């Protein structure tokens, strides 16, 4: 039966997440926006709380952890044909609440890095045990490429039971604070995408170092590192997935991770934009602007009509995000929907937060309110995990059934 409201079983959990976001994230939001690169120590307590919840099975995907498609949901029931609201849905709902609090601080959550998502998604049981408790960042991008992940230059050369890694990685979120980094490298550049593998590299391994930290437009609470790998020797048991180069399988395996992470980034944009919408509504109402859902927008004030348009776009982004998560929970293909969600949420998240600044005038532009901050934070959400343009490319290729050589 068609129903698009928050699942009943997650409502209490969402409410809790909202309180956590309010008290731990929103409360420290401006502090770490101003003190870029300072470690947000308040998050340590929160992270242990989330670890505790995960261990006791109450987490419901409270963190940014990955999703293993092979396993059953938290209920432990094998209910075929029964519609599931599982960990993909709860993770997205959680991320929305957290980013309503602060996007940068969510990204700084100890042991909830993108590397953790990758480990959780593809690691073997032995590896899961081995990397338990690590805080892992993800290192894909290099100075010479961004969207074109197949152009990886960082090399991994087999030497006995080790791989030797060499290269430079940029835009590594939590690269400084994390304990380990999941590094993407190629075993053989001539074999193309199929030869790209990922390695869990502990930060205390000789040969890996943080070169510098970026100063950014937004999400300043989160550290963004440049990482250099200089003859860094990594044991072969740290390779995630199969060590074989399967040219037929190509890049699909690595890219499949994005089907699970893109809805999460879409959720970040949805959460951030909701914060702006709530605040601008409050400010507008104080200024005497009523928003009426029944009267035609054309008969209301410009501000009210603009708010309605923003809220409509926001609702569409929210539901596209939930749809992508719902498909994943129910083991249905969601590549296109994940990209649709990311495209819509990325662009409207940015549009909405910027428009809210405009509506609030100098009050919105000033650091006295969060509106200006959210409009800076939102920009990255239309860029990382695949830019707006990459998402459109993915959607278009799927819709029109075109290959990457046909639709470039």
């Amino acid at each position, binding site marked *: *039966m*068609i*129903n*698009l*409201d*928050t*699942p*009943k*079983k997650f409502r209490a959990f969402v409410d809790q997440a909202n309180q956590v976001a309010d008290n731990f994230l929103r409360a420290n939001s401006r502090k770490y926006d101003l003190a870029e690169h300072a470690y947000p120590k308040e998050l340590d307590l929160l992270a242990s709380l989330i670890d505790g919840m995960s261990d006791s099975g109450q987490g419901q995907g409270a963190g940014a952890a990955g999703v293993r498609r092979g396993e059953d949901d938290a209920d432990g029931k094998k209910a075929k044909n029964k*519609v599931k*609201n599982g960990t993909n*849905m709860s993770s997205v709902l959680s991320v929305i609440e957290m980013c309503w609090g602060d996007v940068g601080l969510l990204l700084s959550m100890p042991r909830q890095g993108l590397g953790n998502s990758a480990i959780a998604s593809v690691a073997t049981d032995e590896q899961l045990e081995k990397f338990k408790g690590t805080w892992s960042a993800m290192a894909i991008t290099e100075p010479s490429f961004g969207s074109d992940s197949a152009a990886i230059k960082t090399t991994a050369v087999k030497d006995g039971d080790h791989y030797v890694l060499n290269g430079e990685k940029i835009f590594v979120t939590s690269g400084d604070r994390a304990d380990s980094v999941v590094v993407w490298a190629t075993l053989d550049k001539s074999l193309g995408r199929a030869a790209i593998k990922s390695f869990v590299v502990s930060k205390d391994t000789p040969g890996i170092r943080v070169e510098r930290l970026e100063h950014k437009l937004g999400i300043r609470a989160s550290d963004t590192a440049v990482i250099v790998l200089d003859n860094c020797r990594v044991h072969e048991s740290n390779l995630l997935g199969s060590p074989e180069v399967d040219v037929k399988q190509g890049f699909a395996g690595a890219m499949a991770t994005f089907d699970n992470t893109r809805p999460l980034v879409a959720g970040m944009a949805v959460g951030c934009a909701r914060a702006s919408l709530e605040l601008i509504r409050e400010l507008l109402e104080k200024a005497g602007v009523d928003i009426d*859902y*029944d*009267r*035609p*927008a*054309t*008969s209301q004030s410009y501000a009210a009509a603009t708010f*309605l*348009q923003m*809220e*409509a*776009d926001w*609702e*569409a*982004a929210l*539901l*596209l995000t*939930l*749809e992508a998560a*719902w498909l994943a929970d129910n083991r249905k293909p969601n590549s296109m*929907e994940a990209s*649709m969600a990311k*495209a*819509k949420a990325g662009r409207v998240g940015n549009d909405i937060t910027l428009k809210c600044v405009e509506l609030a005038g100098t009050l919105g532009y000033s650091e006295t309110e969060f509106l200006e901050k959210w409009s800076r934070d939102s920009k990255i959400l239309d860029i990382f995990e695949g830019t707006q*343009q990459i998402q*459109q*490319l993915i*959607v*278009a*290729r799927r*819709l*029109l*059934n*075109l290959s990457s050589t*046909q*639709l*470039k």
Partner: protein
Amino acid sequence: MASRKDPMGIGLAVLNRIASSPTIDRLGLRKQSEKAVYHGTRAGFQAAGAAGRTFKKVKGSGKPARQSSTGDSGVFDLTPTEDQQMIVGVVAEFADEVLRPGAEAAEKTDDTPKEVLAQTTEFGLSLLNVPEALGGLSEERSATTGVLVAEALAYGDMGQAVACLAPSAVATAISLWGSDEQQQTYLPAFTGDDVPAAALVISEPTPLFDPFELGTTATKSGDGYVLTGLKSGAVRGLEAELFIVSAALEGKPALFVVEATAEGVSVAADPSMGLRAAGLTRLKLDGAPAALLGDGAEDDYREAIRLARLGWSALALGTAKAVLDYTKEYVVGREAFGEPIAYRQSVAFMVANIAIELEGMRLVTLKAASRAEQRQSYAREVALARKLAAEYGMKIGTDGVQLLGGHGFVKEHPVERWYRDLRAVGLMEGAVLV
């Protein structure tokens, strides 16, 4: 237990009706004879209800019958029920085999063929929202089913879809808000074999029209009321036998029942940019006798406005999907500079954005419907769905024409009609109800 029809029982009832009726094929509706163009050429106001029946007043027992609602399901789910899938399957076939091929001809006559309308009677389109006790199909009401049906019809042709849904809007209004007497008097006609043309008329031909600030007024007269004013957007008004009309009563908007044969009721064709097959008319009320629908509660009126807008959002979904499917095929087949134009990002991204915005507006529309169905507040969701349908529905319409270039501008292809039809979505009030 055995006799109770839950919402899932609706589909079976519909299928049963179809099984016992002539099929689309046997009716030979695919080859429509082109009717004489007469509506567009009939000028000026004329007395309404020329062929109209008189509705014999029936005294009721005092308590109107209402459909119940479903409870809060609590699970996020995008899967239609099996019965909804069956209903939509039948309606989609009808849209595909009857409405789409007949769209051009229907547009030329400014009307929807009677055979097509009769076909919708066969599968009980006007029965969906009528309580079982009054000859309807189900004890429970599902706005979601209404949305899915409207969407499927509009995928065929929005103009004819509106014409098909117009009597259902009136039957739904009487079922939801009418008094027992009104239900007993009017609903039998809508549950019978000869469903009357009827229209729910809210709009007025003024700029920035607001359905809560009406120019048409109602004044008390004896036991009833008389209405005065000019209404617009009356679907198939020239044929209509019954109108539900909005008017201001002591400054507050309310719905009134107006029989077409009543004095002071006249109609005039109002050919418009699109929706030609819906036979749009203006309705002039000059001291026309009318009865307040039900007790005229303000909440009922608000609900009517919302459910109509929900219906228009649903119609936009169907037509926008038609644009998407048509342009998808066109851009892959059409070549320029030695390769399909789909190979260009500027073209392919337009199609991607059509799909993205369509999916977004579809989900918001379904959320509004499912909340209405579960008796939760849905004013916000309807407003958002309407905003998206108006904004992106039109954007999809104009991009559809753009993608075909000059070919989109000529009637060789249906996209120019979809463009004209989609312009209606953000401005129409009333006419359909889900």
